[in-house]
């Protein structure tokens, strides 16, 4: 009895592993550390950040994102020109072979419009990343409250 159970479990596990591999083979793009900045009260526009890794030997391009949890999503780049901050839409985000691109506060971000449900700290939302090769990678992004009281963890440290 026990042997049959173990055998079944092993088969199931193997099947799962095979499926996982199949999904990974579909796109060389992997998303790391996806998070959404918790919106202050009364705001309906949010931003998501993440690291996009390209493990393959060919350049990849991210063509856009969407989300079932938001009315719409757009990739933007914040640029500061002559002291003026602007957000420019990014239609194709290149991720070089073997490289990665970081979306982080004050730079590249995913602009998320109108959450379809309340999203508070600790909640997760689904983001779908589309590539030029036609892959759609689904990512779970955690909502994080960031208000800067975590003294000492100053991201701008790295910029000098």
């Amino acid at each position: 009895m026990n042997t049959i159970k173990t055998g079944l479990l092993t088969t199931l596990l193997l099947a799962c592993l095979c499926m996982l591999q199949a999904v990974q083979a579909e796109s060389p793009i992997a998303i790391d550390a996806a998070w959404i900045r918790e919106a202050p009260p009364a705001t309906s526009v949010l931003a998501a950040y993440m690291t996009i890794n390209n493990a393959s030997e060919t350049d990849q391009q991210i063509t856009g994102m969407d989300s079932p949890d938001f009315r719409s999503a757009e990739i933007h780049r914040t640029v500061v020109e002559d002291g003026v901050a602007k957000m420019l839409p990014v239609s194709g985000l290149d991720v070089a072979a073997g490289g990665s691109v970081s979306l982080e506060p004050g730079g590249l971000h995913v602009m998320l419009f109108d959450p379809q449900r309340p999203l508070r700290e600790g909640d997760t939302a689904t983001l779908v990343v589309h590539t030029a090769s036609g892959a759609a990678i689904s990512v779970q992004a955690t909502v994080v409250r960031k208000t800067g009281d975590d003294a000492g963890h100053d991201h701008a440290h790295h910029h000098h």
Partner: protein
Amino acid sequence: MKPAQILIGVIIATLAVTAGFWAAQAVLKDRAPRHDLSATRFPVARDIQPFELIDHHSAAFDQDALQQHWSFVFFGYTYCPDVCPTTLSVLNGVAQRLQDVDADVRFVMVTVDPERDTPERLAEYVTYFNGDFLGVTGSDAGLTQLTRQLGILYNRVEPEDGAAGYLIDHTAGVFLFDPDGRYHAVFTPPLSADRLAGDFRKMLQDYQ
């Protein structure tokens, strides 16, 4: 020399000495340039001309509201999901780092989107970052009165799809006002709490 001529001479000499004294005072008040500041500090802080805005309690916020305390002032809007929350988080980090200083330091966000940013909305927004932060809004005319003298630019950008609501390009610096209500210094991006707090301590030392 007649006594009258002597008297005139004495008066002229006295005036000259007084003028010299005042000139020296003015020069002394000009803070020596420091090379360890990342902020841009004016040799002589600039006077602010009258302007009329309101804070998130719907109380008047004008040039007098900048008197008797230091103010870090940021210009932004609540529909801004990246730069504005990031800057307010940095300012909260500055507030945490300056808790021990012997000075009254305040933090203000002035909206460049008075059409959408009502006092109520700003109240909820700024206090999410820090309960002591103050939001300021008002009429377009009132906003222009202040932004023009600080050289602040803001420009509404209509969205391509028409549904998402407009964005606003805006000056992303942080403006520092001293307890005389004068424009003292400006911090330009990239902003960091360590840098702002460190620079402020030096400027406070020079000011006292």
